[in-house]
């Protein structure tokens, strides 16, 4: 059962209580868990010698390779919850973060929609903000019209104040019942009631959601943590680690081959240092290994967001844009991929993404991943993850420089 559902059942936590609850639920930063045996004298002595009696527990989760979405799907709720709670891996395809779609649906049925989920709350707040903006714009327009009349009739130049008793401000405005969205005559189909009958005897809800892991997440979980098994979508047989390694690369090369069940596995996998899977994995692994929680950043127009402990604890501090750099420009011209951001940005684009992130208090980081030159390193090393030691990662921190504020 989703955490969000539980939270709302109890009417929500207060700040400190929620933090404690989060500290308890998300105590493990990785899926691996160390279990300590009970305290004993033997243990203390052994521990002095640097010997441990603790044991390591690694979960075994199962996912299915989905070629079309370039991802691995977990449909087992228990597995999804383990990966989400221990390191915030994956994303529910119908939710903003952890899969909560089913909980939301159950909530709607149970309460008739009176108790709102966070998604619904967001929607409500959004509608209210919209209404506030409309009200404010209307009031300002009225003030200008008044000033206009004063000018035309009396020749008085009235300075229109954009705040004051008659102009609603964010602090004073309250949603009113009458301020509901205007009820425009219904132009839509009349059949909608038939499509969604309000029935007492509703069929049991089927969970339409899965936890989606990117290839980078999936590879990290199975390669370093050994806690994920990936099943072939056709055969539902577990894939070997070597098979997965080459599949993640070849999907980017030729998804058609893999989508067509009748096609033979490609006779010889072409290996390229600039395979998007490898570039993304290098970055993902780099930040994970430094203890960051790494999530996708499309909504902030970047590649990744870095969270210190996880998205439930704090806002992301850093917004990462991947900039792959060819050691040898010739490799770029012969590449089968169209990697983005391999050439320097225009200044206008840098302004755009920096501005978006600065207003949200995120520091923009350009993460340069060097792509080994084929002339320097044989692409044969790509047949195993040993190739990863030939890449390198460098960060460049971007901030606006405001001379007026740097004078001391």
């Amino acid at each position: 059962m989703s955490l969000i559902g539980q939270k709302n059942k109890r009417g929500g936590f207060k700040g400190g209580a929620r933090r404690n609850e989060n500290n308890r639920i998300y105590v493990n930063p990785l899926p691996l868990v160390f279990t300590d045996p009970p305290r004993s004298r033997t243990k203390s002595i052994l521990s002095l010698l640097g010997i441990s009696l603790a044991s390591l527990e690694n979960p075994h989760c199962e996912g299915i390779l989905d070629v079309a979405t370039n991802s691995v799907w977990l449909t087992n709720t228990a597995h999804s919850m383990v990966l989400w709670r221990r390191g915030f891996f994956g994303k529910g395809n119908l939710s903003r973060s952890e899969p909560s779609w089913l909980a939301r649906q159950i909530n709607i049925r149970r309460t008739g929609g009176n108790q709102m989920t966070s998604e619904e709350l967001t929607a409500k707040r959004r509608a209210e903000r919209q209404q506030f903006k409309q009200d404010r714009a209307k009031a300002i327009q009225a003030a200008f019209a008044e000033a206009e009349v004063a000018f035309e009739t009396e020749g008085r130049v009235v300075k229109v104040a954009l705040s004051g008793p008659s102009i609603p401000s964010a602090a004073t405005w309250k949603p009113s019942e009458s301020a509901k969205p205007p009820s425009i005559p219904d132009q839509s189909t009349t059949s909608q009631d038939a499509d969604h009958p309000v029935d007492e005897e509703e069929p049991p809800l089927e969970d339409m959601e899965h936890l989606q892991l990117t290839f980078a997440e999936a590879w990290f979980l199975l390669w370093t943590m050994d806690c994920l098994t990936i099943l072939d979508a056709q055969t539902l047989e577990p894939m070997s680690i070597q098979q997965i390694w080459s599949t993640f690369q070849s999907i980017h090369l030729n998804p058609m081959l893999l989508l067509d069940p009748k096609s033979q596995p490609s006779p010889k996998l072409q290996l390229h240092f600039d395979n998007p899977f490898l570039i993304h994995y290098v970055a993902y692994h780099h930040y994970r290994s430094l203890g960051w929680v790494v999530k996708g950043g499309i909504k902030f127009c970047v590649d990744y967001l870095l969270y210190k402990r996880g998205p439930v604890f704090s806002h992301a501090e850093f917004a990462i844009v991947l900039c792959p750099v060819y050691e040898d420009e010739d490799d770029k011209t012969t590449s089968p991929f169209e990697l983005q951001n391999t050439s320097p940005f225009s200044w206008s684009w840098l302004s755009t993404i920096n501005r978006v992130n600065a207003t949200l208090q995120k520091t923009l980081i350009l993460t340069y991943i060097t792509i080994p030159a084929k002339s320097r390193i044989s692409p044969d090393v790509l047949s195993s993850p040993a190739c990863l030691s030939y890449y390198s990662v460098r960060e460049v921190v971007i901030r606006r420089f405001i001379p007026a504020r740097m004078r001391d």
Partner: protein
Amino acid sequence: MQTHYSDISSLSTKYPRTTGSLFLVYNDIVYSQLWTDVQVLDLEPCTRAAIRGCRRLNANNTHTQIANIVPCTLSELVSLEWLDNAFVSLDDPPEVYLAITSDDSSIVYYKISRGIVKPPL
């Protein structure tokens, strides 16, 4: 696994490369955004399927609006001609929604209108 794609199967086999984003967007529209009368249309010039449905404009569905969505992934490249073709194939609606998906299943929707359309006051 095939069952997940059943609603959109005919066009997903026609355009296998764009099936992923179509699937993600279709499910989001049906199950999260709760649009009604959702149908999948062939958008041949963009080698993909588009989605048309009734968008909810308020909570209890008393007001809806027919809207068109063109899905694409973050790693694709598009062009003005491409967007123009989408408008033409969808019978020139005043606007289309571009749904951009990423590998982590995130989707962002942006409204694209033809011509110079003023921002809301």
